[in-house]
């Protein structure tokens, strides 16, 4: 923790960056995102198991004046997000200083994104048994049961779009839900509208979701919407051997193809 504060201090004091994005003590014993712009504030920075928010989401908010250099406290999901965003030309290496945090809470120095890419690929990237179990549970249901299950879940959604705002990959400046010519997603938060929104969300994140689960964490109603993208990630990994957040150069799973992609349903 001290190392982290130390690092932040020096970055700010010798003006390598103008702002450090990290975590600080929040209310009710929660950690919350912190935006440190001067060395003397750096001591409010913390890092522990409560610091779970995917801070990468702040990197695409275009709120900062141009040429502001940012340092970001990057847990593993944040690193993956950064790689994905970089592969989608959303980040400029020269303006972002990544303060990596290893699984055992030590600082990691990265000289560039490629360095992060290397680090990520050394880690265990497989889905956890817990994740698998959640998916299997739903896969095991009958079609009717699945339908009922999700209808039920979606019926509670009231379209606050917290899932959208919390996701680093949802960075469109004008989201499809904001269109009405044509009205791709029905506006009201009734079953159909919610259903269409969540399918859109999942499909737009298909193969791009890095699995930080921020969406369901952000959801005030705790809808398990992270399962939608997780399911697709698993499927895409199985079918095309691609997973998001692991490569700066590899083409996105859905903007490429192999002639011998195996499907079973096309007549």
């Amino acid at each position, binding site marked *: 923790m001290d190392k982290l504060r130390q690092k932040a201090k020096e970055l700010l004091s010798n003006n390598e960056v103008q702002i450090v994005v990290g975590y600080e003590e929040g209310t009710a014993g929660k950690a919350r995102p912190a935006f440190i712009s001067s060395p003397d504030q750096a001591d409010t920075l913390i890092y522990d198991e409560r610091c779970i928010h995917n801070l990468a989401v702040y990197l695409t908010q275009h709120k900062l004046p141009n040429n502001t250099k940012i340092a970001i406290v990057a847990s593993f999901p944040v690193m993956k997000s950064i790689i994905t965003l970089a592969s989608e030309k959303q980040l400029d290496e020269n303006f972002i200083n990544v303060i990596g945090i290893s699984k055992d809470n030590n600082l990691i120095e990265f000289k560039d994104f490629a360095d992060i890419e290397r680090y990520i690929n050394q880690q265990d990237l497989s889905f956890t048994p817990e994740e698998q179990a959640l998916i299997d549970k*739903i*896969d095991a*249901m009958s*079609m*009717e*049961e*699945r*339908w*009922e*299950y*999700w*209808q039920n879940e979606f019926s509670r959604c009231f379209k606050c779009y917290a899932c959208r705002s919390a996701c680093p990959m949802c960075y469109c400046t004008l989201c499809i839900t904001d269109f009405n010519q044509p009205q*791709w997603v*029905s506006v*009201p938060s*009734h*079953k*159909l*509208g919610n*259903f*269409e929104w969540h*399918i*859109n969300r*999942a*499909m737009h994140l*298909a*193969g791009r979701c890095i699995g930080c689960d921020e969406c369901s964490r952000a959801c005030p109603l705790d809808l398990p919407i992270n399962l*939608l993208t997780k*399911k*697709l990630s698993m*499927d*895409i990994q199985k*079918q*095309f051997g691609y997973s998001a957040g692991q490569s700066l150069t590899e083409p996105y*799973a*859905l*903007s*490429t*193809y*192999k*002639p011998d*992609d195996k*499907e079973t*349903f*096309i*007549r």
Partner: protein
Amino acid sequence: MNEFEPKVVAFVCNWCTYAGADLTGTSRIKYAPNVKIIRFPCTGRIDFMLILKAFAKGADGIIISGCHPNDCHYTSGNFHAKRRWMVFRTMLDFLGVDVNRITFSWVSAAEGARWAEIVNTTVDGIKKLGPYDNYRKMVNEETEVNNG
């Protein structure tokens, strides 16, 4: 009581399946009138949302058809489409949408008879499945909400 006549929308590519359906016509091969065709330049153009919209507007079944692999007029549109359908289908299935109501097929410009066969088998299949009430229920709730 008269038999249930499903509503089926076909999204087809201009170069293979649309031409194939033309050939069905020129060969005077009869098929079920339940299917109505919307023409696209390529299966690669077909947006997954259109399928949802079709269901939302009351379709009981959907056909998506384009060129056989390697025959795409744009060389790779159908390959990209194929990948997307693989993913989208997984999504729908995971959400409990009845994927048996969606027929994906490759029908070339020379396969007039095959088009008729695809249409008829699809329509028969949907007849067995009956009207897509689940989706209707979800949609009707919309109108309720809208009306107050």
